[in-house]
């Protein structure tokens, strides 16, 4: 699966799962609330009966007060009496947190039933009946929610996978098509490009007139530019999956070779190389290291000004390539390694070069430091460990 595909899939799933979770939490809440109301309405009838009985007992107590002072008790429930201003006259309640706003309430594991009296026996305006909540309904709710909730979640997840595949199919098809097209095209480019470059090298420029030599030079530049692009594309489409063939590379020699290769390109813009090369080695795949150097040097030429300069300094674990070109704004530096991103469209290219560089650097744990100032130049420094 491609990276862009994975990204789309993750995003879709994150959105889908969070929406499903929100919907399920809401449903669970409503289910809980409806079950609670159902349980309370079940208890309401019994509690109303208790309240009726207790009212009758209060009536009797009122009649015989103060000779009888014992508040009526019942093993089935606890009760309390309050006057019209909510002052407690007497209470046997376990939970004293009484609400006068609702007829029936559940709090701290106790169910309270509120009855308003029309005749205020002993001054009682409100009679509270309390019973303990056995919590069985809550256990049932948890059981139902966990069981049916997880079944529903798994079903939704499966549906999500099916939908994701359905939605991603067109994207996947077009990516595959593009990929195949690039692979075929790059493959077809190889033979003519090699023929052009080989024949240019075989040409004897000594016997050429000046006019033709310049023309040939331009052809060489164009062919080499296409060749770099070709190598980047083949690397991206075909070679990057190949196994690494790491070896100890003589960096100095490689840089000299690549500078020579790019010399014609540099000369066309009258850009000169300033080399300060110490001895340094690195354990790496030659193709990959060459891709790094080629891209950095070709960028340094491409974005340099005419008669500019490219300074390459090689130390033991450090390689610095700096140009005197257009530079890039500081805020854009973090994005310069993004694929297909090009800050300057006046130059050719696909914008894949630096993304390849970054990928290889990350693979080998090589650090890159970029310093740039607009219209002054850019410096890329590679730092690696032993």
């Amino acid at each position, binding site marked *: 699966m491609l990276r862009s595909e994975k990204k789309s899939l993750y995003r879709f799933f994150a959105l889908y799962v969070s929406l499903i979770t929100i919907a399920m939490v809401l449903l669970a809440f409503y289910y809980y609330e409806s079950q609670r109301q159902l349980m309370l309405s079940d208890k309401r009838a019994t509690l109303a009966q208790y309240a009726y009985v207790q009212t009758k007992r209060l009536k009797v107590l*009122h009649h015989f*007060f103060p000779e009888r002072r014992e508040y009526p008790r019942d093993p089935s429930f606890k009760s309390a009496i309050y006057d019209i*201003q909510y*002052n407690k*006259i007497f209470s046997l309640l376990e939970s004293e947190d009484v609400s006068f706003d609702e007829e029936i309430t559940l709090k701290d594991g106790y169910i309270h039933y509120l009855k308003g009296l029309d005749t*205020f026996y002993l001054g009682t305006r409100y009679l509270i009946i309390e019973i303990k909540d056995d919590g069985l309904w809550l256990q049932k709710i948890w059981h139902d929610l966990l069981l049916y909730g997880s079944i529903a979640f798994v079903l939704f997840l499966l549906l999500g996978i099916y939908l994701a595949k359905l939605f991603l199919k067109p994207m996947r098809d077009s990516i595959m098509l593009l990929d195949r097209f690039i692979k075929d095209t790059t493959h077809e480019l190889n033979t003519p490009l090699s023929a052009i470059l080989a024949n240019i090298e075989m040409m004897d420029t000594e016997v050429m007139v000046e006019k033709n030599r310049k023309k040939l030079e331009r052809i060489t530049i164009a062919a080499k530019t296409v060749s770099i692009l070709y190598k980047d594309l083949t690397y991206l489409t075909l070679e990057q999956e190949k196994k690494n063939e790491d070896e100890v590379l003589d960096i100095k020699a490689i840089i000299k070779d690549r500078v020579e290769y790019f010399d014609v390109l540099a000369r066309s813009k009258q850009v000169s190389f300033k080399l300060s090369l110490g001895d340094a080695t690195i354990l790496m795949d030659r193709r990959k290291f060459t891709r790094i150097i080629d891209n950095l040097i070709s960028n340094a030429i491409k974005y340099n000004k005419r008669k500019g300069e490219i300074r390459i300094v090689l130390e033991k674990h450090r390689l610095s390539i700096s140009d005197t070109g257009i530079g890039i704004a500081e805020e854009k530096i973090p994005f310069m390694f993004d694929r297909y991103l090009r800050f300057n469209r006046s130059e050719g290219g696909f914008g894949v070069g630096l993304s390849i560089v970054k990928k290889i650097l990350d693979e080998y744990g090589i650090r890159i430091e970029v310093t740039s100032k607009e219209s002054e130049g850019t410096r890329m420094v590679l730092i690696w460990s032993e």
Partner: protein
Amino acid sequence: MERMRSVMLWMIVAVMATTQMQAEDIFERKCVPCHQALPTSLQEMFKEYLLVYSSEKFVKIGIKHYLKNPSRSISLMSDLFIDTYGIKQKTDLSEEELDQAVDIYWDKFKVFDKLK
């Protein structure tokens, strides 16, 4: 010095006790004698007030209103009682005395702290 202090203390206690007794007196002097002659006790009448007014504040307001404006229409007693004993006279107590008497009445017969 010590003696002076104990004398002063005695005097304060004496003054307070006298005031209390005077207040008690108002209820005993102004309410109890007439009610003793009636078949319905002050306790029973208090319970009638509780049945209708419920809380301390409203009971006191109810009693005071009736004592100031006694009439058949707002009396809590039965028609038979009123026909036999009539409506009481309008109170001649001052506002302060009335408050004191009603407060004592409430404290004497209230249900709070009496149930067990």
